[in-house]
């Protein structure tokens, strides 16, 4: 503690040798303070000017959209088998049981042998997801044993009525309009 005398003058509570003086910055004010403030202001000016040269970092939505990762949980999709065209969903309601927000409604019906809808015994006659309640957690996708429901990439779901936001089976089965860019490898 070489500057004992100086510290006792400026810090009267540091009379005890066992108390260590706190490392303080230089006192503000005065000519030295003004000189340093001027220098720091110039440094700040250089920083803001550098921002002009670097260009803006804004992504101009809706013309440009941030690309999403492949596992992004967007709007749900119901799937069909490509070869037969039958729906994969058999109406087992495991997704409805797994849903934490309780927003899936499944009513199953017996499959007619001539006009099959799904390859199993039953099919989902009514399948509705209430998107105003869905929290997009993806538990329904995890729970489905037939890979019938997956989370797609669509997040632009705004609408004018609450009723229009209850998506029916037809809407979920339909080919979605892919309008969200996907993040490529190494981006």
């Amino acid at each position, binding site marked *: 503690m070489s500057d004992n005398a100086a510290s006792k003058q400026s810090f009267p509570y540091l009379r005890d040798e066992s108390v260590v003086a706190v490392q303080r910055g230089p006192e503000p004010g005065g000519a030295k303070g003004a000189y340093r403030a001027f220098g720091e*202001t110039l440094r700040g000016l250089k920083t*803001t000017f550098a921002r*002009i040269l*670097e260009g*803006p970092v*804004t992504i101009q939505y809706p013309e440009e959209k941030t690309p999403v990762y492949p596992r992004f949980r967007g709007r749900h999709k119901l799937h069909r088998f490509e070869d037969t065209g039958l729906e994969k969903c058999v109406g087992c309601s495991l997704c409805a049981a797994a849903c934490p927000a309780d927003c899936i409604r499944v009513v199953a019906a017996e499959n007619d042998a001539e006009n099959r809808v799904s390859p199993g015994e039953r099919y989902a006659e009514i399948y509705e997801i209430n998107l105003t309640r869905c929290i997009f957690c993806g538990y329904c996708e995890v729970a489905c044993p037939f890979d019938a429901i997956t989370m797609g990439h669509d997040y632009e779901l705004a609408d004018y009525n609450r009723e229009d936001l209850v998506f029916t089976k037809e809407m979920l089965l339909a080919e979605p309009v892919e309008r969200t860019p996907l993040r490529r490898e190494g981006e």
Partner: protein
Amino acid sequence: MTIPAADVGFVEATWILVVKSLVIFAAIFGIVPFLTVLERKLLGRFQARYGPNRVGPWGLLQPLADAVKLIAKEGYRPENAVPILWSVAPAIVVFAGVATLAIIPFGDVKNGVGFYGIDVSIGILYFFAFGSIAFYGLLVGGWASGSKYSFLGAMRAAAQVISYEISMGLALLGTIMMAGSLSLVSIVEAQDSIWYAIPQLVGFLIFLIAGFAETNRAPFDLPEADAELVAGYGTEYGGMRYGSFAMAEYIEMFVVSAVAVTFFLGGWHGPGPGWLDPIWVIAKIFAFLFLFMWIRATVPRVRYDQLMSLGWKVLLPLATLNVLVTAVLVTVT
């Protein structure tokens, strides 16, 4: 007894003076909306984002949208307000700002017409006179609003303006002594060998800092800081009246830049033929305005007591010292 009027350096016919006043009026009311969108775009670029870019190409129609919005707003006068003073305060500030533009020289006398409104022999005192009238507008606006917060905001703004006006005047005094005349045209003509920013560097810096405080611009924009005082003296004003206060601030900014260009940056002097002079002045003024916006984007707001102590304890002694040293050197050499 008649009040002695200031001598005018070069008088043209009355109709020419009328035309020049109309041109100055039209020009400033055309430049100010462009300044608002320029400031917002520049602030955006300094902050690594775009400024407004949706309304027109490069956002250039944004002032039109702002003006329509402000004009369409309800003009609500509070019950405690003094009616006539409350209505007239924004007009006073705008009038004082525009009137100051009459003395700024944009060029020398060409074809019998001087490229300035009028060249009074009292020169810069005209600028300070109207600056004080603008300060009256702020004070009247804040007091006549009838609300405590407006009054407080107006008092703080008024104290700030008058504190820094003194340092501003003293900083300009150095250049006046070097040129030997108060008239602005003579001062610009005296700078053809060297711009006064170089011998009067201290005066230039003092004028710069005091200029930020005069126009209530960052880092001295406490009177209009939204978080601190809601809009200070402008709290009870809505719609176009508030727009007038904002417009007056931009006009003042333009005027202070123009005065700085005239006194320290050589006015219309620049390489090239004579018809390029007004363009040089406008280019230098816009460089100064860029500096105003650059500082606003960079420096944080100064607290009120720090502001007042800076004005009285740092700038005033420095400005007085500057005047003293300049006076000695001018007399000796």
